[in-house]
């Protein structure tokens, strides 16, 4: 609390390990950013700023030169230099390493040391979003220390350059940090809290109750209902923040899972008319949620929302149903995970009104992911955080280009998006994205839903700014 200049964060995700390469969950990695740093960081309003790299220059479309910060030491005293960056990249590129999400780093081809504090990074293809991405991924490991430990050991006692040091870790339960007194003179400022604790409380109600009871100072991931409830507590402030996360209802127009009703365009039209997306967003996410026309975040470059839009109109929906091959309706399972199941359940309510007997098929995240990429989910709620990247190329390759998550299977769209993702020319890119999203909307190849809102609540007196990408950097906060 404010009295002892500490903060306890009621967190929603379990942390099994503090080794960032043992998990690919953005929310888990967010906690690790207190300890380990990237080359760059992103400000609350979305700009990439120097962190371990002080400056960078694009040499060509696939080459960037970075100058690294001098005089930085890891928590255990090891000095930071180009070797650490080279080592880190070598680690994650090593095919034998048990690293869960090597895909995240596919855009990096290699890194070479050009001086003790300078490196040259080669990209595997022109990647316009590379700088933005590097502010969200690539935790720099201490090469000597990491070499001497195994991955699990490092996961229990991580060593980094970050503003906070880990002083206690109970897997799945909590992490305790202490301020890094030797932190360098960073662009964003200095860490404020003496102690920082991240306490895992998976159940939202528990988080809420612990906040009101005073054991926890800061919570996130609340529903609009929770927020409403908290407005009554005088010593608690609530704030809604944006995110780069969008949700869409993935359909199977290309029969990837076999014959199914969503192959029928009339069915798709009926569905998109039947769902009042604005209300769903408001009720499930909050007033700040935006109903989407394209499945990407309006803040992202290349996200064309100006496409064929569909109003909420049950009568029309029923007409389309009547015209479809399923005038008497059919049964449908909507696969969803975690809190997205609530959106799915709301959707079932709408679909039932036009004769589609929809049920929710709730899975655990990884189970859902496994089945989705295996092509076994005809209808599912997809929430995509884009890892906070402000460019649609962080979403299209996964779902709308020829990839494991592509249920659209349209050659034209595929080609447009692929090209747009590998050129630098902004205008051409915009043109191509417009074509792609336009066709997706015309054909109703999926049903864009809403943007996600991140809701926070904390004890009054905290100086906190929500991040525009939905990944708040708590180390920047402090008591007023």
């Amino acid at each position, binding site marked *: 609390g404010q009295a002892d200049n500490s903060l306890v964060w009621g967190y929603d995700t379990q942390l099994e390990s503090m*080794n960032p390469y043992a998990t690919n969950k953005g929310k888990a990695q967010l906690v690790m950013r207190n300890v380990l740093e990237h080359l760059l960081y992103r400000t609350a309003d979305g700009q990439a700023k120097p962190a371990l790299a002080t400056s960078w220059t694009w040499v060509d479309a696939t080459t960037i030169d970075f100058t690294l910060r001098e005089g930085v030491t890891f928590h255990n005293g090891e000095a930071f230099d180009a070797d650490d960056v080279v080592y880190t990249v070598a680690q994650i590129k090593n095919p034998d390493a048990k690293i869960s999400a090597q895909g995240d780093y596919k855009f990096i081809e290699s890194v070479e040391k050009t001086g003790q504090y300078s490196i040259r990074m080669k990209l595997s293809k022109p990647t316009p979003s590379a700088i933005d991405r590097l502010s969200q991924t690539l935790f720099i490991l201490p090469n000597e220390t990491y070499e001497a430990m195994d991955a699990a050991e490092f996961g229990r006692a991580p060593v980094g350059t970050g503003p906070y040091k880990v002083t206690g870790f109970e897997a799945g339960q909590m992490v305790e940090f202490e301020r890094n007194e030797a932190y360098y003179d960073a662009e964003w400022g200095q860490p404020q809290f003496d102690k920082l604790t991240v306490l895992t409380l998976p159940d939202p109600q528990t988080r809420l109750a612990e906040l009101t009871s005073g054991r926890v100072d800061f919570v996130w991931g609340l529903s609009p209902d929770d927020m409403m409830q908290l407005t009554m507590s005088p010593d608690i402030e609530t704030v809604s923040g944006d995110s780069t996360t969008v949700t869409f209802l993935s359909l199977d127009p290309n029969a990837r899972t076999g014959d199914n009703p969503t192959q029928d365009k009339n069915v798709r039209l009926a569905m998109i008319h039947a769902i009042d997306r604005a209300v769903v967003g408001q009720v499930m996410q909050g007033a700040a949620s935006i109903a989407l026309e394209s499945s990407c975040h309006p803040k992202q470059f290349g996200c064309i929302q100006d496409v064929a839009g569909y109003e909420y109109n049950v009568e029309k929906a029923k007409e389309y149903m009547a015209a479809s091959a399923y005038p008497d309706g059919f049964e449908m399972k909507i696969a969803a995970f975690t809190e997205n199941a609530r959106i799915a359940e709301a959707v079932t309510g709408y679909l039932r009104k036009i004769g589609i007997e929809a049920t929710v098929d709730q899975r*655990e995240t990884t189970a859902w992911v496994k089945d989705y990429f295996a092509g076994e989910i005809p209808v599912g709620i997809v929430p995509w955080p884009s890892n906070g990247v402000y460019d649609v190329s962080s979403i299209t390759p996964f779902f709308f280009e020829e990839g494991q998550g592509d249920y659209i299977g349209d050659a034209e769209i595929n080609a447009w998006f692929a090209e747009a993702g590998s050129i630098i020319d902004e205008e051409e890119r915009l043109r191509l994205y417009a074509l792609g999203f336009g066709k997706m909307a015309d054909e109703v190849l999926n049903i864009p839903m809403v943007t996600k809102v991140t809701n926070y609540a904390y004890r009054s007196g905290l100086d906190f700014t929500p991040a525009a990408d939905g990944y708040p950097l708590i180390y920047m906060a402090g008591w007023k």
Partner: protein
Amino acid sequence: MGAYFVRKLIEAAAVCVAVSIIAFLLVQSTGDLAVAMGGLDASAEDTARLREVYGLDQSFVQQYLSWAGRVLHGDLGQSYFSQEDVLTLILERLPVTATLSVASLLLGLLISIPAGVYCAMKPDGWFDRSCLGLSVLGQAMPSYWVGLLLILLFGVTFRILPISGTQSAASYVMPSLTLAWFVFPVFLRLSRAGMIDVLSSDYIRTARAKGLSERTVLFKHALRNAILPVVSVATVQFGFLLGGSIVVESVFSLNGIGLLAWSAIQRSDYPVVQAVVLIVAIIFVLLNVVSDLLNAALDPRLTSEQ
């Protein structure tokens, strides 16, 4: 006695082997794990590589044998999701579950045995009737509901007890109460029925005929025989509780074995699920052996070979 013990242990070992095979089979049939591990953005090559790294491309029998071999050397493998040693994961969480189980079991026993004995002494009295009523009610209330009601009462309305976590001893109060409430009816009925049974037995009449005081009759002659069934059921219940009171742990966000197993199941973290099932089974089977031994200690009939 020795032979009896050895025989029980061999039986227990056979059961454990069978359980391990079932656990392995079950987990294997959840499908291709490499895809799940790879995460959202893994490519086909990534998946193939993971499959190879983790030996998922081998046949079932091969995988089982190599796993079993490692288990015999005390290596339960690593979690696919945290790279953490599974044994460490389990041992870290065991204290939470164990504390909870012991607390709730003791609480349950301390209330139900005296109550059961008292009920048996005056069957159909008001105390007996209300205890029985309570136990019927107790059996009908879902434990998570009881937990939620407790939270509502002590956590939200009165705010006198922490509603989650394991920070202090107070954190265990509500979960233990919830579980004790759950085991209470079983023990109450058993000790009551056992006592009624014993009190009407011939040897109690013999003891009375010897002119012994009612207290001696009750505590020396009756109680010991009456709690025999309670002892065996209590150890079995203890096994169940240790096996993870998944529901209660999830209601109170207690980071115990139950929650570990539950999340591991959900994301098909093979090594963890296998290990938890195996360890829970071993604990259960061992507890059964302990229960047999306890029974044997209390009941000399069981051990001697005529």
